[in-house]
């Protein structure tokens, strides 16, 4: 009874929750966490497509692996940036990160 569409629905809901977190949280680390949630929703889609549409050819799982690699790189660089801005502003609140504005 549980099939392809249920996995896609789960991924859509996780995507919505991640988007909600990005819009209404103000801590930079929390925003990174929400981005990770969105990437995970994409990965669920990829793995579900691999199973139900591609017939287990493995391409979807391979792509999900690449997404995980890029997400890990993104977290490393993003946290380094946040730590650097924290040194400058003594805050991890994105409302205080206005140094590119003038």
């Amino acid at each position: 009874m549980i099939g392809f569409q249920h996995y896609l629905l789960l991924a859509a809901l996780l995507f919505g929750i991640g988007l909600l977190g990005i819009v209404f949280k103000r801590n930079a680390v929390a925003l990174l966490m929400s981005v990770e949630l969105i990437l995970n929703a994409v990965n669920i889609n990829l793995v579900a497509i691999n199973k139900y549409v591609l017939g287990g050819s493995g391409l979807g799982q391979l792509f999900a692996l690449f997404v995980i690699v890029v997400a890990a790189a993104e977290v490393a660089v993003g946290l380094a940036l946040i730590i650097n801005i924290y040194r400058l502003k003594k805050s991890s609140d994105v409302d205080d990160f206005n140094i590119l504005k003038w």
Partner: protein
Amino acid sequence: MMREILASVSIFDIVFVAIAGFTLLCALAMILFNNIVHSMVAMIFCFLGIAGVYFTMDAGFIGMVQIMVYAGAISVILIFAFMVLMSRDPARSNRYSPRKGSILAGFFASGIIAAMLGYAIIATEFPVSGLPDAEVNQMEVIADLMLGSYVIPFEAAAILLLVAVIGAILLAKGVEKDR
């Protein structure tokens, strides 16, 4: 009617609904907690739940990678980073946006997008091809692809990780003052 529905429910359906509900609950908790340490614990459980979703799709390798990379490495990096940045009052460390409009717009936008995606998913007839036979070792298939036709993206991903790690070290080290 009720009995027919109950008869068509398999143990797999119950497992999937339990795992999916757990994942969604943890994701919501991660978004809604005001204390970012609680948020991060919810995030780890959410990632473990997503690994469970992969296991229900016979994607054991991706599930293990998910547990190691997300629930292990990325969570530890995030927690460490936040310990560095921790302000005096952790109970208010993960506050909502002070602007009411932003919160409303967030609910509006994400609700509309999730509803549209959900409607599109339910209304679409997907061309479901034959399911993979359980005999095939999925890990073997991925390894063949990764070191066969897709070896150049694989190496590019390795270089990307190396560059990202070096860049993160350089960025986090900061500029030396006396120069």
